């Protein structure tokens, strides 16, 4: 399939150069800053400047981000789980302990996309955003480590901590002014020379961490602590969005001095994020993704393992995050697949009309790429992708 796919792709692009006026039913939601009802089943176009601020290019799945780059716009389908998350976020209140939502679903059903839509929703509602691209980066992709001076036995991760703080700063530009108005609770003595005094803006902690990487891990803890405190006092609402959150209870590749692998509870950043998940604070929402990549081998295409929360979080993690609301992401329905199909047709992403090219044999012409715009092609794309959003997108991109 693979080598042929490449050839077929170029052919299809060549064939599909003919322009076609498509007046499809492309419903775009109207953008507004107030909390609106999110209508599931519609396409939603994100403003490019906003997407840049929210760092969508790195947070979305890489292949999807690449395709959006090609098409020149960020259009996603708003689906049921997004609406569910939004309705849960509406409940958040200063008296209510933070609401914990777990997105779970089979591979490729849109957990990460839903998470990013929720982040965008929080942006529109002027929430503070703590977004982690993948918890696996804290446990498996640790480039440099140093022992913590604050708590004995903890392991700091300066590079990831700096990245988290930078990302925090970038994503919260819309509430940065509010954040500067919020003041610290106590004196923070980072080292002998560096300290942040009481009653200073909490953004100073962020700046401190970015400028001094060896302090960054502690700064992350401090900023999280301040955010929780201010959220409790109803100064602002906080969305904590953690992709692959079950990796916080998974295995790590960080080695201790005795060359054994450190448990995740020894990693400073993991501990900070776990504290953010704990529900001892109010006025916030924690959105987690239970993802199979912690336990499953991505290259093993035969094994079908479970993707349910208890399996992925494990007993310890499950008991930690309980009580939570599981939100399932599922495969497309036929109408959703049609919406995406019509969008691709209108963007000329699916170009070939029918298989009337004499230079190719018939059995090749029967492949979906040669009749993508015909009724038969629409059906074949739908069933060959098994209504799975990831497979559908890959199949429409013909690779």
């Amino acid at each position, binding site marked *: 399939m693979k080598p042929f796919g490449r050839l077929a792709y170029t052919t299809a692009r060549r064939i599909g150069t003919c322009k076609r006026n498509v007046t499809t039913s492309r419903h775009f939601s109207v953008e507004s800053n107030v909390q609106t009802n999110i209508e599931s089943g519609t396409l939603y176009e994100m403003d490019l400047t906003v997407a840049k601020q929210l760092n969508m290019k790195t947070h979305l799945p890489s292949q999807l981000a690449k395709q959006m780059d090609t098409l020149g716009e960020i259009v996603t389908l708003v689906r049921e789980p997004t609406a569910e998350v939004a309705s849960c976020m509406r409940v958040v209140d200063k008296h209510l302990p933070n609401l914990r939502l777990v997105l779970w679903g089979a591979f490729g059903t849109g957990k990460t996309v839903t998470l990013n839509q929720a982040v965008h929703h929080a942006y529109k509602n002027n929430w503070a955003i703590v977004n982690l691209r993948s918890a696996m980066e804290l446990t498996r992709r640790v480039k440099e480590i140093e022992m913590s001076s604050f708590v004995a036995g903890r392991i700091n991760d300066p590079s990831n901590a700096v990245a988290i703080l930078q990302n925090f700063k970038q994503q919260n530009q819309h509430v940065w002014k509010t954040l500067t108005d919020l003041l610290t609770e106590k004196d923070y003595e980072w080292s002998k020379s560096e300290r942040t005094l009481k009653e200073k803006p909490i953004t100073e902690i962020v700046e401190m961490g970015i400028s001094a990487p060896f302090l960054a891990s502690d700064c992350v803890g401090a900023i999280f602590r301040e955010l929780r405190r201010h959220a409790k006092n109803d100064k602002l609402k906080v969305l904590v969005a953690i992709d692959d959150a079950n990796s916080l209870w998974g295995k790590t590749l960080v080695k201790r001095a005795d060359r054994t692998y450190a448990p995740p509870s020894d990693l400073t950043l993991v501990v900070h994020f776990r504290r953010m998940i704990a*529900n001892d604070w109010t006025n916030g929402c924690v959105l987690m993704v239970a993802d199979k990549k912690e336990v499953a081998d991505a290259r093993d295409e035969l094994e079908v393992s479970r993707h*349910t929360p*208890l399996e992925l979080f494990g007993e310890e993690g499950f008991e930690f995050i309980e009580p*939570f609301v599981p939100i399932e992401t599922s495969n497309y329905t036929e109408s959703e697949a049609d919406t995406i199909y019509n969008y691709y047709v209108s963007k000329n992403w699916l170009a070939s009309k029918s298989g009337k090219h004499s230079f190719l044999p018939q059995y090749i012409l029967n492949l979906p790429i040669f009749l993508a715009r015909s009724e038969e092609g629409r059906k074949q794309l739908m069933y060959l992708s098994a209504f799975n959003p990831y497979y559908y997108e890959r199949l429409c991109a013909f690779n």
Partner: protein
Amino acid sequence: MHRLSHISTRSRSTLADKLRSAVGGSDYGKSKQALAAGSIAAKDENGEDFRELYVMPKRKLRGQIQLEQNTGRAEIKTRSRFDLMDRLAERPPRSEEMDPEKHKWSDVWPAARTFAASVVPLPVRMGSRPNVEKRAPFKKEGNLELVKIPNFLHLTPVAIKQHCDAIKKFCTPFPPELIATPSLAATCLPISVQYSTYIHQGTNIRDIRSRVVTMIVDVESLKLTENAQEKFIRLAGKRYNKESKKLTIITDRCHTRKQNLDYAHYLLTVLYHEANKVEQWAELKERSDNLQVEFEGSETKTKLVDLIEKAKTAGLKPDESSITEFGEMWKSYRNSEETVDKTREYGRQMKKLLGISGNN
């Protein structure tokens, strides 16, 4: 032309003369006689003997005899075949002599034996032919295919019945109570043993598979205490079936069935006594060591109750009464294999508990 002349020269050769004279028959050996009589000079001018050329043996050739016989000059001798009397003495095949009414087949074929065409009176045919319309499958005489396959000619229904009648005196009748009420078997006979016996067409009565013994025990009938039962289940591992509450021991490590059966009984005994032992460390058991996770007294329950209290102040409408229902669902969710449906049910109940409806 050339060929013709060639033949003519050949026909005038001495060899041709000799052949002609031989066919004539009357003057056979004339030159020899003439030589003996001295009519032909026996010595040449050098005084050496005349060496006659060897052309043919000095007896009648087969062609000559045949020629003589065909023209009636010699009589045809007929000889009898030397084994004719033997062949006449031999019986026709037994299958042709047999009478279905008089002969008992189990006497003719009492035990397992390779197929013999002369004994089996059935006109069986076997063998694949390319065109069956033109050529029928091969008949039974001299048919190796029929010899190669196994046969049950010694296991006809009549023979089996005879065997059964013969061994009947060694058997006891099956308990009629168990036939009347099959449910009695579960209570009266908690141990059931299964094994298989294999028969072959050949003479070998052994089969490697016949050693395997499966023993199924109803664990409840062992009347273990609660602690002992838990230990029993842990020791049995995969052999214990939670649903049917039965223990299945399959033994195949020994060479004979009896050894395996003894070993299965031994295993059961050891399991039983080991389960009834109470060790010192058994008292150190904690809540997390239990076989099953309980909702009552769990951290989740305290967290949930706390959350519901706070949710009330936050203006949600939590459904307090459904916490017992949630507890039951939670227990089955934690203690059985997780499925997608169970997780969905978990989400539904949790939303109901917290008072978050899907579409508000």
